[in-house]
């Protein structure tokens, strides 16, 4: 599993997609998640996208990429702040879990890959990763996390966050097209 992850930086998100899309994944006890684990993974996904964004701001000279990155920092920070307030209100502690760890590992590999790039190559790597990342995370949140959570305020937060993340996915799609990264 680990070696596969290193070969494919988005493997962790493939796990997320698997969770969202297939009954086989949903039935795997190892991948079943409780509310606190879902909260942890959702928060982690946002935090990782913020890290991608800071890398983009450090490397990219594209105004479109930089504006997108700033939006990711602004929006994901707002959503995660709301999550932090909810956790404090409920007096619970999100639980680290397999999916969170895979997300972290996959993102580390992806950042290492992108740090070797510059110019258009970096911009396209960042843009296409943002599109893939949001697409897969959104599928997981919509099809797996929201139906599974049992605490209403957490479900409300995930639904609200999904609105934001879907806007990001659309924005990323426009960015990929505008940069000429397709194909």
């Amino acid at each position, binding site marked *: 599993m680990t070696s596969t992850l290193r070969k494919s930086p988005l493997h962790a998100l493939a796990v997320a997609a698997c969770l969202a899309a297939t009954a086989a994944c949903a039935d795997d006890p190892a991948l079943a998640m409780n509310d606190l684990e879902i909260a942890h993974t959702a928060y982690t996904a946002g935090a990782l996208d913020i890290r991608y964004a800071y890398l983009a701001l450090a490397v990219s000279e594209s105004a479109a990429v930089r504006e997108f990155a700033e*939006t990711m920092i*602004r*929006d994901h920070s*707002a*959503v995660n702040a*709301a999550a932090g307030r909810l956790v404090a209100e409920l007096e619970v502690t999100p639980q680290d879990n397999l999916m969170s760890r895979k997300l972290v590992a996959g993102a580390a590999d992806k950042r290492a890959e992108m740090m070797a790039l510059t110019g258009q190559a970096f911009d396209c790597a960042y843009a296409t990763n943002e599109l893939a990342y949001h697409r897969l995370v959104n599928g997981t949140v919509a099809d797996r996390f929201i139906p599974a959570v049992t605490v209403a305020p957490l479900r409300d*937060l995930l639904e*609200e*966050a999904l*609105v*934001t993340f879907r*806007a990001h996915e*659309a*924005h990323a799609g*426009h960015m990929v097209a505008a940069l000429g990264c397709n194909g």
Partner: protein
Amino acid sequence: MPTRRDMMRGLGASLALAAAARAHDGPHEHEVRIARFAFLPARIVIRAGDSVTWTNGDAAPHTATARGEGRETGQETGWDTGALAKGEAARITFDTPGEHAYLCTYHPHMTGTVTVLPRDG
């Protein structure tokens, strides 16, 4: 061109919804909600001297910012609510008739228009 800007923080604003271009006996307050990455309503018609309040209901911050040369050149020639976090509101008063197109600078696909009719038109 709007001449006054009044920022209101918090959820306290209780404003009547706009009835577009209705008969006016004085300045009126109008409200635009920001929800699910859209301005609601996206188009609003008011009279000169009226005010519009934008209230953000999204988790993500938004702005309502005048489009035009000012934005493209970075000049401060247009009106701008500034950043609105969830639950925050900002009011702009419009004194000059015309078509005022605007957008969210953070999410430029979010657009709207304030049409200002002459006060005694």
